[in-house]
């Protein structure tokens, strides 16, 4: 609770600090605020807290996901000063909006009431419409903002309709009441089923699962890369945490009405995400499709509700956030250096010029592909184990095949960095920037060697 308040207040503070026109002040305030929030979040471990008349419930599940998201944001903020170098205007506003969005994300994971979930999702999304278009004079950025706004509004409308239908049948927004309803009622009216389907569909939009993914590649490609990194990690994780919590607490007793949908979303995301990624020339777009395929994997956890799936989802989120931030971090500087050319060719010869960047990128690619001793391996492993325990062997086989296809395009980048050469100059980065990338990389390796540190949390 206090960690969410801290994040929000830091956001407000940043708006005012913007008048000082000193980029080091606001970045340090932002990071201090985030670290305080992270500490507050971690220290409230094991202390169950409900607030706002049971609208929010901060349990270990919420704390774990919140901490991952706050940590991911810290890493993103460490990348920010270098990314915004030379841009003076509106940077503190961008920081503040990121903060507000994060506060919303933290609310999303800890809802105990569907209205709170709605408020959280909106708080998280609205700043992103602006952030996606924050490169004011880039047409792609404007397009991204516009598309994101349109599709998000559609999702919101569907989500509200879903809540309404559920409320109409159950008579309460409260999570506990909804799950009680299903223990009492045996025959579920089909209007309620429609409500559940609409909720699933709206989350399908949020987490970019095929066939509701169409906005994602365009928006990810068009938005400023830093914002894309935020959207691909924090927003997605929040969406997943809420999705999992919603289905596991409210609708666990009526799997008939959503199980097949999740199955379809998962299989389609795996297939379309991986296949479409293979021929992409732009790395950012490729990462967008890879993010869609990760959605497919993460849906396994929701498919196979058991004691293990929440922790496997948490581990996957952590591993995915680290590798994504590392990958986008490297992409950002490379793209900047190559005068906005983010294609695979831009990475050629990176291993010679900037070995550290190349190694960071390699490890993050290996982690995304699920190669051992990176976190990505155990992420996939645990999520597969969870699915097998739930009896979904055939879908795990599809998952493994999809992961194999995935290796192809992840390796393409590694080959470009190591096997090819180019004449371009060395890329100059700041120490803070490298620190963030190295922290992410080292954590990928640590989590890959000692998965139990995270997997045994919840």
């Amino acid at each position, binding site marked *: 609770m206090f960690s969410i308040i801290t994040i929000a207040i830091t956001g407000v503070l940043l708006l005012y600090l913007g008048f000082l026109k000193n980029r080091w002040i606001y970045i340090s305030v932002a990071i201090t605020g985030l670290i305080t929030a992270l500490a507050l979040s971690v220290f409230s471990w094991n202390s169950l807290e409900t607030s706002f008349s049971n609208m929010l419930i901060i349990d270990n599940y919420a704390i774990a996901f919140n901490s991952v998201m706050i940590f991911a944001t810290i890493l993103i903020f460490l990348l920010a000063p270098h990314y915004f170098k030379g841009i003076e205007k509106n940077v503190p506003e961008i920081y503040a909006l990121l903060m507000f969005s994060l506060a919303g994300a933290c609310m999303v994971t800890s809802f105990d009431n569907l209205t709170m979930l709605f408020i959280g999702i909106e708080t998280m999304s609205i700043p992103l419409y602006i952030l996606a278009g924050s490169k004011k004079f880039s047409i792609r950025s404007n397009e991204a903002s516009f*598309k994101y706004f*349109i*599709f998000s509004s*559609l999702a919101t409308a*569907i989500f509200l309709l879903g809540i309404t239908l559920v409320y109409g049948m159950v008579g309460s927004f409260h999570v506990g009441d909804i799950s009680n309803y299903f223990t009492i009622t045996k025959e579920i009216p*089909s209007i309620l*089923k*429609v409500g*559940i*389907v*609409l909720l*699933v*569909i709206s989350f399908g*939009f949020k987490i970019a699962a095929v*066939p*509701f993914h*169409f*906005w994602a*590649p*365009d928006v990810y490609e068009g938005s400023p890369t830093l914002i894309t990194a935020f959207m691909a990690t924090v927003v997605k994780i929040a969406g997943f945490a809420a999705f999992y919590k919603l289905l596991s607490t409210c609708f666990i007793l009526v799997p*008939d*009405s*959503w199980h*097949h*949908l999740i199955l*379809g979303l998962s299989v389609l995301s795996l297939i*379309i995400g*991986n*296949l*479409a*990624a*293979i*021929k*992409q020339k732009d790395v950012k777009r490729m990462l967008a499709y890879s993010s869609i395929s990760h959605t497919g994997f993460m849906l396994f956890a929701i498919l196979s509700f058991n004691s293990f799936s929440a922790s496997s989802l948490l581990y996957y989120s952590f591993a995915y956030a680290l590798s994504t931030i590392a990958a986008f971090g490297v992409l950002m500087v490379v793209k900047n250096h190559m005068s906005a050319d983010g294609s695979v060719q831009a990475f050629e010869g990176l291993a010679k010029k900037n070995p550290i960047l190349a190694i960071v990128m390699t490890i993050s690619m290996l982690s995304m592909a699920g190669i051992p001793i990176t976190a990505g391996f155990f992420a996939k492993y645990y999520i597969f*184990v969870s699915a097998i325990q739930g009896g979904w062997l055939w879908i795990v086989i599809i998952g493994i095949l999809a992961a194999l*296809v995935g290796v*192809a395009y992840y390796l393409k980048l590694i080959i470009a960095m190591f096997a090819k050469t180019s004449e371009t100059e060395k890329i100059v980065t700041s120490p803070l920037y490298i620190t963030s990338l190295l922290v992410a990389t080292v954590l990928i390796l640590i989590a890959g060697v*000692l*998965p*139990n*540190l995270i*997997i*045994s949390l919840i």
Partner: protein
Amino acid sequence: MFQNSWLILLFPLLGFVITGIFSKKLTGKTSGIIASLMVLASFIYSATLFFQLKQITNSAISVDLFNWINSGKLSISFGFLIDPLSVTMMMIITGVGFLIHLFSMGYMHHDERVNTYFSQLNLFVFSMLLLVMSSNYLLMFVGWEGVGLCSYLLIGFWYKKNAFNNAARKAFIMNRIGDLGFIIGLIAIFTTFHSLDFNTVFSQSSHFISGEAIITFITLMLFVGAIGKSAKIPLFTWLPDAMAGPTPVSALIHAATMVTAGIYLVVRSSSLFVLAPITMDVILVVGVTTALVAAIIAVLQNDIKKVLAYSTVSQLGIMFIALGLGAFSSSLFHVTTHAFFKALLFLGAGSIIHSLQGQQDIRLMGGIRKSMPITFITFFIAVLAISGIPPFSGFFSKDEILAAAFHSSPIVWGLTVITSMLTSFYMFRLLFLVFYGSYRGDSKTFGKIHESPKIMTIPLIILAILAFAGGFLNIPVMFGGTENFATFLKPSITFFNDYNFEIPNHLNEILLALGVLLLIIVTIFVSWYIFVKKSVLPVSDSTNRGIISKFIYRKFYFDEIYNFFIIKPYQWFAEKFTSFIETNIIDSIINGIGSIVVFVGNKARLIQNGNIGFYMFVMIIAMISMIAGIIWLK
């Protein structure tokens, strides 16, 4: 103190990381000092643990750091087992390892990749420590593999010579064959005991009766692992080839640490092995054959390091004889003394090679005892120790094994005595040919022969003291001792139910020892007569040899047999597979799948056409069909 025993592992790991990362920046001297200090720190910590452990009566302490792997039924903790056995091994590894590090600082100072060398040496010590400290088979296997990897790296350290690379690969492949056995053993242990933790496995092993098939299978598989790592027949041929690495590496890998891993494995699993008499017999037979065959081969070798290598194989055979007899602590005692004198021999050989500018052929040495007095004296002590002359350390350890052998079977005893006689024969042959007589090499180099620098001679001196006094650790009862070593180790080892720790009749034993001693002294005299009095020289390679002599000189044709029966057919198959199955069938399938995927991917990409209207259309269609599906389809 015990809880923090992970520090022992941390030091060499740190050394590896530091010298590895800064290998371009550090000078050879600095990295040598860092690496040596790290191992020294580990040694000091191990020694402290040793003294603490002696105070405690219930002397097996498990230290669980954290839960390492948790998957289904498999639960493995990252933990250490600190008991007399592991502490003894830790002290040998770090103690001898430290001296070898010191020696290396002198030996390797001119090498251009000296930092990499020290980094790998530290990694080696780390892996070996992990092997002996771990509290379960899986973690032990990690160390086991690490040792295999480091030996590969270090044997092939001078990678520019192709022959050295081949030697490294040979070592690695031979080890892999053994590892396969180890892995099968691990799986069998897990399916039988549902755990890989030492304490759990050993406490459950009492539920099995002696000779049960599954236990025999497990122990045989573990023994296959031990065969690979400890270089026994039939997987011993890698060890002599492994002399390609720098000489201190030979001392570290092939005398003090790596090859003892197999023995450690058997002793650690003693409570399983005592339940499998068949396996014990197999060990005994393999041990005796190896000891004898290697000793015979060593007699005709002309490369100073090859002689020592075969002597190692032979000594390891003797240790396995002790294991096969169930005399686990005697075997470990021999490991300890052998670590001292064999390390000393290798380092001495290193000192000689260093001073002779890389010359290794003993036919081109001779008469250098004047110019290298310290090397000569220490080498001489080591030769006395390995030959088993009292009161040098080798006497006590070998005597224990002989006594145990005599107790169970006179044939084994007889063969072991013959091995010992051969050992003293070829060791003194080596000593006489290298240090006595006149110099036979290039006369230009003779003037340059010099005693090695202090950094190399000090380890020699320390090791010489240990090789001399190491035997006093475990003075048998018959000489008025208390068998400290064996008593200390007793809690870690399970013995046969009817195994007799004390031999009642001391008089017999003393007589036996004296008899063997007499035989050995006669052998030494014969050796002296042939090589000093008559100054017979080994014939050069071009001379025709008799059939038996040729048979022995070519190492019983082991390499040729392997080449003909395994490598050639394998290569034939491999070639056929490449030319036919690989290119025609597999490639076309793989490439076909690949191009189909790429083709479909290219089409899938086009769905994303950027048109919001189209996107919306597809999404709405999907939504409607989902709702319809949920309502109407069950």
